[in-house]
């Protein structure tokens, strides 16, 4: 169980209860652990009741943006006369994040159950689980579970005699960060390039195949069964008013005990790093942390007192994102880290919008040149200007995502950039 419920960091609580338990992967093992009981309950609930309990629980999307899940479901039209779709976003590719993979490979039936309950809430007839191309072993586990669930009547025609039918397809992507953007994901399911489209139309109006669609993250959907089973008040015993519940954390970088932890939202970021993960090897000083995956802003060692909630990290000038802190100690060259992040975004830009296509690669080129000792002071002005032009100008937020770490690193680690430019040296020790 994660902090503060237990000091035994290997024990997990809600979502991660069966992570590491090989028997939970199979249908029989999952049924022994109370699996699909909530789906049976949900089959006799009205879709509105399911939506209401999820809405009341305050569950927020775990894919990074933190949009309230229940509210998103209410955007789906009633009686549209069209097929509705649920897409489960399992294209987990944010650098630093590795939580969905663990849910899927240890508890595939938990995700399937969450998908089925959510599909019932939004009136979907078909579910797509869009799995990141590189997650080949994960997709195999998922597919085995789906076959079992079909055979046992938890997916398919007339589910458990309820008269309600819903299909589920596991769709393996071809490996692109941008396929994790919801409209890019839907384009990819349709067989097109994973290129985001301009909203409107929003997915709830015209999503995959032009039909009303909801896209939810794996962790979000896996959380749904426990909320439907235990009620919204039960879920709200953890976390804060605006960020209820627990969250899987993916802690990486210079940590004594990096890994996945399920933690209640709202504990101080400092405790995540120093209590849960045991601090930094050799007790070196912390230089920077990117708290929510590579597309969130850098925080320095002085900014760790913030609370790990959506609102707390936003106040601190960063974001909870996917709750994937990447910790960098004093030996880290921030410029180098930033260049590597920018290089990632340049590589993953889909190439539609000019700013993103050309800007991300230009940022990378400038950073690399500074890194190689050929920087000029006016490069910093250019980088700030690029931050302006890469923000809010494009179809999706991939370009914005490189700006969050870039601008914060320029603001907070200017000494690093200046040292490289002026003396071709590094402030890292």
């Amino acid at each position, binding site marked *: 169980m994660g902090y503060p419920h237990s000091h035994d960091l290997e024990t997990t609580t809600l979502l991660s209860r069966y992570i590491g338990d090989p028997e939970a992967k199979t249908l029989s093992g999952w049924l022994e652990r109370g699996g699909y009981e909530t789906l049976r309950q949900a089959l006799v609930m009205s879709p509105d009741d399911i939506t209401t309990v999820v809405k009341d629980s305050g569950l927020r999307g775990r894919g990074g943006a933190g949009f309230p899940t229940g509210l998103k479901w209410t955007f789906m039209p009633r009686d549209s006369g069209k097929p509705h779709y649920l897409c489960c976003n399992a294209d987990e590719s944010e650098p630093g994040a590795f939580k969905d993979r663990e849910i899927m490979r240890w508890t595939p039936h938990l995700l399937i159950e969450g998908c089925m309950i959510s599909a019932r809430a939004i009136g979907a007839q078909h579910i797509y689980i869009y799995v990141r191309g590189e997650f080949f072993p994960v997709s195999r586990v998922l597919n085995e579970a789906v076959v079992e669930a079909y055979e046992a009547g938890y997916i398919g025609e007339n589910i458990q005699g309820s008269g309600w039918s819903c299909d589920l397809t596991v769709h393996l992507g071809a490996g*692109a960060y*941008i396929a994790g953007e919801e409209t890019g994901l839907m384009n990819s399911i349709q067989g097109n*390039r994973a*290129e985001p*489209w*301009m909203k409107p139309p929003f997915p709830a109006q015209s999503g995959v195949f032009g039909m009303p669609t909801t896209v939810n993250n794996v962790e979000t959907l896996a959380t749904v069964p426990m909320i439907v089973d235990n009620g919204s008040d039960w879920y709200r015993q953890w976390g804060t008013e605006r960020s209820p519940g627990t969250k899987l954390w993916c802690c990486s970088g210079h940590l004594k005990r990096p890994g996945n932890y399920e933690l209640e939202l709202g504990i101080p970021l400092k405790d995540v790093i120093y209590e849960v993960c045991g601090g930094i090897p050799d007790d070196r000083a912390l230089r920077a942390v990117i708290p929510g995956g590579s597309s969130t802003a850098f925080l320095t060692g002085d900014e760790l007192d913030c609370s790990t909630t959506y609102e707390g990290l936003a106040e601190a000038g960063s974001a909870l994102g996917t709750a994937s802190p990447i910790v960098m100690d004093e030996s880290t060259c921030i410029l180098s880290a930033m260049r590597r992040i920018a290089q990632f975004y*340049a*590589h*993953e*830009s*889909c*190439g*539609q*919008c*000019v*700013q*993103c*296509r*050309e*800007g*991300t*690669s*230009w940022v990378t*080129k*400038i950073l*690399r*040149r500074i890194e190689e000792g*050929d920087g*000029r002071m006016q*490069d910093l002005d*250019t980088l700030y*200007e690029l931050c302006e*032009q890469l923000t*809010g*100008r*494009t*179809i999706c937020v991939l370009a914005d995502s490189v700006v969050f770490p870039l601008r914060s690193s320029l603001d907070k680690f200017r000494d690093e950039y200046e040292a490289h430019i002026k003396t071709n040296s590094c402030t890292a020790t």
Partner: protein
Amino acid sequence: MADGNDTVTLTIDGVEVTVPAGTRVIEAAERVGVVVPRYCYHPGIPTRPAQCRVCLVEVEGQPKLHPSCVLQAQDEMVVNTATDTAELARKSVIEFLLLNHPLDCPICDAAGQCMLQDYAYETHQLESRLNEEKQVMGRDRIAEDILYFADRCIICTRCVRFMRDVADDDALIVAQRGHKAYIDTFPGAELDNPFQGNIVDVCPVGALVHEDFIFKARAWDLDKTPSICPGCSTGCNVTIDTKENQIVRLKPRHNAAVNSYWMCDYGRKHLVMSNRGVRAEVPLIRTNGRLAPVDWKTALEWVADKLGEIGEQNPPDGLAIVSPGASNESLFYLSELVRCLGVGRIVYHVVQGETAALHGFPKLELRADRAPNVTGAELLGAERAQEIARSTAGAPLVVLEDPLTDAPAGFGSEASFFLYLGTRLPNAAREADAVLPVTSFTEMEGTFTNFEGRVQRSRQALQPPGIARPAWLVLSRLLASLGAGDTVMDARTAFGVMAAEVPALADLDWDSLALKGARAKTTAAAAAEG
């Protein structure tokens, strides 16, 4: 769709404008004379990915800039296209596009007609801030006659979307992604489509170029003439680009009633071929058994005398063979001549070819009748003939512009008098008693009636060779010599005389034809309207 009304009223750059509900801001802006820069947006391509981000505008009360190509006009919306933020964003897009651009305008076919060049000058991008090496991608042959310069490409995807959404052919794709993206044919597929030339026209920069135009001319050295394509009976509206009295290329000209923004590749190449070959340049009359060159006055007097004599002899029914490539005016005066000589038959023969329709605009079809004026010929009394007809022995024979391909040996020898009016001198016409050189399609003004009865003007793009003259002028002068009517010196007058005589054309006047043409009262036109 405010309040279910059919129109919305918004303000663009301080000017109020009312447009149909659903209109996009980029189109509403055009109504008040504001042309928002655009790359990926093309009015003829239905998909709008909003990806070039150069049409960003500011909407009052909204923090983010909006791409005006997809932003729907709404009541009380206040749009500013030229605020500091919008202009800076636009300038920045141009800077991004120029980062890796080779700046090879001096050798680029698009220079002078390039939207990147234009906006770069407009936004004063004089120096690059790129201190690194440019990315070099090279060039590729994307179709048999089209080259692709990846370094100039701005990935607006107009070409991909024209092929996919208008031509219904998935031949083109964007390959790779991000800054490595380029346009390519789908693996295993070839770009081989009768309408593929349009991708060169929609390319806003010099990324796609026609190989038969490359390095031939600078855009600003070209003379441009609005005309129509004579390749088939569709009559696509085109601009004929000429240089030094040669046709260099044809570009489609927008006409929503005929060809939208497009034309076919057959038409594109067909007219350029007419640059070639030897032309009939001076009148020839048969003297001492041989065709001898003479001046127009001598030739016309001689022909008028001969025709006058025939008229007095009361000969058997004559025959006129006309080309459906001749203008309405020429065909009209030819029919007047036949009438003047007594009873006679007028026939035409038209070359047939394979058809191809454009999926996204099916009215635009490369039609089987490979001539621009089949409907006009029929309207003016000509009958369709499957092969070259023989004239009755002892009767007069007049041929207007028909190339007499496949004419039988001894063609015309049985005629009492054989008059040939043509742009060239085919072998079969060497038997003629007189050859009168007339101007070709591009060397004169005239009107042509397309398959559905739309009468459209062609305009003079080239100077005629030698002393060739328009057929309508030659024929009206001949008729005047025979005492029937006056010589007309311009196409406008010729059209007026014709419209007064031909009921189907009665409602039309020269000025109303303008650039888009107008429908004649033909059965085809009635069917198209019905």
